[in-house]
């Protein structure tokens, strides 16, 4: 029931926003923010009552959808999906709040779509039926298409087409895989999937998630989409939507295809390693703020996949922690990029600089997020990356070397970004009159930063409360407890 409420609440909010006429961005955004806060409160209530001792499904609900193929509306929460739902709710609050603060034209449609996206993402994290999972997975595309296509930057048309064709190409192959898998099992229930030894089905899933994440070399849509979208949409896209791919790997691929995972592990790890280094290098060379964040996002998703395919306690724990970390980090960075772009009308690093002077709040938040993003020891990102490297080391020390090298690269691109925006000479596009962060911006980004700092103090808050404490066993037994 509560799970259904978590899914339905944003959708209901979206409907209300679409139907009622809205005169100001503040009114529509305010309602959307209230709904998002309600979602967050609902999630907090769920966490308080959640039983973290078991790795099985909780708060589940089921209703038959159509019986002849065994498809049902089945939703529920695992302990690890709970954290991803929380991430979604938190980033949604920040993004919607930011959109409201920034003001958007046609606010009813805009905030409704943001809520729709939120609901669909929560649906992906909670669906326990393959077809339902797919429905939510595809439903995320509609709001993203319209949000980027209508409210995006100058190159939005190309960006949206590329984004949609890439991701739907991947996910439609997954549809065939789902059909083949479900018909083979006689049911689409994800809690009773069992395993399959079909390489084709495995690849259908993996490619879909590789495009969505994205992994190298499926990232062609990423830089355009992240650059052209409004800042808060990029925040949701890279912070939350990309995590659905990692979630899919964790929830469907790892448990259901043990043989293929073992056979293809090297291939996936090679691709992920290339992506990690390649993304980091591109982030270091990117000419604009969004480009740096976008390519660092590619690198981080690859790191998460390395953790997942390490397929041991440490790797899985680290991957999950890093999913939450990266969600918070990239959402904060995109929102900060939005604030910078608002003040300077550009994201070009050559035209920026010197923004720290006289703008202490912006500088402080930017640097704090940056320092966490480069995984400075003591930060939660360090904990996550350490766990991932610790997990991958027994698989092969070479992978760990690549991962460690990437951490150095991360330091390079983050520091380059920080210095290009905040330090050096004052950029030509930075007007003296550009204000420091306003209270609204501060509180929204601050909220994400506080979450990051809290996790830095206590990363075990997540790692001790996932997979019932035994990640590898939980995945191997397909979370059936």
């Amino acid at each position: 029931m509560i799970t259904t409420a978590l899914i339905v609440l944003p959708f209901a909010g979206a409907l209300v926003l679409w139907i009622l006429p809205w005169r100001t961005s503040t009114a529509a955004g305010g309602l959307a923010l209230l709904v998002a806060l309600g979602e967050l409160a609902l999630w907090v209530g769920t966490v308080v009552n959640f039983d973290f001792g078991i790795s099985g499904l909780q708060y589940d609900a089921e209703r038959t959808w159509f019986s002849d193929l065994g498809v049902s509306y089945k939703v529920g929460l695992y302990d690890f999906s709970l954290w991803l739902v929380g991430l979604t709710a938190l980033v949604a609050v920040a993004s919607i709040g930011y959109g409201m603060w920034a003001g958007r034209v046609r606010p009813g449609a805009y905030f409704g779509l943001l809520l729709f996206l939120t609901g669909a993402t929560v649906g992906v994290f909670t669906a326990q039926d393959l077809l339902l999972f797919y429905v939510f997975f595809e439903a995320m595309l509609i709001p993203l298409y319209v949000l980027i296509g209508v409210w995006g930057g100058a190159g939005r048309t190309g960006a949206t087409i590329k984004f949609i064709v890439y991701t739907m190409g991947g996910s439609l192959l997954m549809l065939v895989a789902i059909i083949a898998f479900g018909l083979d099992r006689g049911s689409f229930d994800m809690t009773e999937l069992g395993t399959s030894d079909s390489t084709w089905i495995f690849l259908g899933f993996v490619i879909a998630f590789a495009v969505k994440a994205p992994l190298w070399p499926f990232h062609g849509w990423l830089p355009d989409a992240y650059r052209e979208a409004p800042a808060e949409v990029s925040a949701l896209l890279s912070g939350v939507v990309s995590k659905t791919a990692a979630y899919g790997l964790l929830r469907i691929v790892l448990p259901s295809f043990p043989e293929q995972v073992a056979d293809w592990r090297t291939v996936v790890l090679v691709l992920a390693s290339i992506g990690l280094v390649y993304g980091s290098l591109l982030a270091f060379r990117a000419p604009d703020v969004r480009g740096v964040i976008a390519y660092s996002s590619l690198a981080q998703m690859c790191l998460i996949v390395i953790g997942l395919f390490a397929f041991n306690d440490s790797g899985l724990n680290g991957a999950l922690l890093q999913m939450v970390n990266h969600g918070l980090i990239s959402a904060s960075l995109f929102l900060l990029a939005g604030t910078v772009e608002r003040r300077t009308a550009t994201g070009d690093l050559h035209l920026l600089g010197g923004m720290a002077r006289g703008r202490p709040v912006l500088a402080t938040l930017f640097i704090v997020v940056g320092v966490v993003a480069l995984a400075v020891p003591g930060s939660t990102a360090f904990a996550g990356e350490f766990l991932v490297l610790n997990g991958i080391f027994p698989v092969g020390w070479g992978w760990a070397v690549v991962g460690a090298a990437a951490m150095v690269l991360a330091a390079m691109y983050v520091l380059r970004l920080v210095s290009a925006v905040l330090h050096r000479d004052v950029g030509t596009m930075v007007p003296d009159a550009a204000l420091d962060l306003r209270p609204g911006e501060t509180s929204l980004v601050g909220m994400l930063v506080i979450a990051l700092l809290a996790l830095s103090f206590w990363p075990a808050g997540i790692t001790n409360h996932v997979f019932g404490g035994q990640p590898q066993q939980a995945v191997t037994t397909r979370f059936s407890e």
Partner: protein
Amino acid sequence: METFVKPDIDWAALSPVLVLLGGAALTMLVPLFLPVGVRRGFSAFVAAAALIGAGVAAAILFAHDDSGRGIVADALRRDRLAELAQVILAGAGLLAIGVSYREPGRREGIGDYYTLLLSAVGGMCFFVSANSLMTLFLGLEWFSISLYIMCAIAVDRLGSLEAGLKYLIVGSFGSAILLFGSALVYGATGEIGFEAIERAAAGGDRFLLVTGLAMLLVGLAFKVSAAPFHMWTPDVYQGAPTPVTAFMSAATKVAGLVLTLRLLTTAFGSQEELWTLSLAVIACISLAWGNLAALVQTDVKRLLAYSSVSHAGFLLIPIAVGTPLGGRALLYYLMPYAAMNVGSFAIVAARERELARPVTLSDLSGMGWERPFHGIAMAIFMFGFIGLPPAGLFLGKFYAFSAAVERGWAWLAIVGVVATVVSIYYYLGVVRAMYVSPGELRLAPAGGSPPRDPALTTAVAASLAVTVGTFFAAGPLIDLARDGVEFLRFPF
């Protein structure tokens, strides 16, 4: 010398057709005695009542019938497949009335339009229950001739006349091929009843049978505009008055495909090696041709016409596999598909009336914001045609692909998937034109808001409700589809 024995006639089973014919008679004759001002309202009202009556009659028959049986000396078949198709056809006709109501044009002869509409639906209702090659051809010509005239009904518009003529010539060509095919099948088996053909087929002349079946399939492929027999589709869809296009794009597909399913399973069920693979090939060609050609269209009606060709491909997949799951998939797919087709052409019609010229993609720019309801409806139809939730077509495609995979033809599902990916570009092109493209709204020269059109808006709303409703209520609807195909003898 044999004496003619009058067959028993099951009037109840014919009631949907009879109600429609009765309505057609009323709309043809009564308006002549009415003042011009009320003719349209009267005809539309009678037509709607007749369609509702036919739909209700078919629904009642559906509820009562269990297994099917032959009626009128086995010339027709009374079964749930026909009755379910009749309900869908009546629904499509009803939606078409809403779209047609305010179509500008001559008002004196308006009764004729509704007569033809009812006659076309009646012919289709007859056609889907055809159980012999003779009734098949009779029904086909019955609704086709009605459609030819409907296409040409805007006699003051050259495009409409051209469309009517083109459809007449190409359609007659298709009919002739079908008729010749029937003759060959008769020659091979000595029978025209579907079941009788099935019994006699094994011993018949192989060459005649194969050729005859091939020609039958070609004739039907003409009607459902499957490539490479679709050449008439874009021209006719573009030239015909938009409400007519709306109706025939939806209804002809329903009738043609349901009858194809019936013919192939009933008369050629044991000859499945002759048609399963060849239909799959036609499906692939339609998918490829329709989608690729749609990519470069700028006229919205032409774009939707090619989309219709590509959907003929999607819809042939479940027939080609020849399984019960395929049958269910076809019937379920047709429900949202028919509604979405009428709905999307209805919006084109509304835009056309507003601008008083054919609608191109650039004519849609800004429409999404200026006409919010039509914009959202069109966007949902377009997302739905792609196969995105929450449109029932998503589940339709899911079912069609499932049928292919279940049969072991995953390659066919993958062809469908690739075609879908290609189709994203042009369907989203419509959405992009409505919401994204810069540029001012291009109003009609007179400017201002278009006149209110509650009938059309109701039709769009109803289409939208069916489109989304079929998604959420998939369970019961698929049960209906299952009942519909339960007693067909699928080869697999």
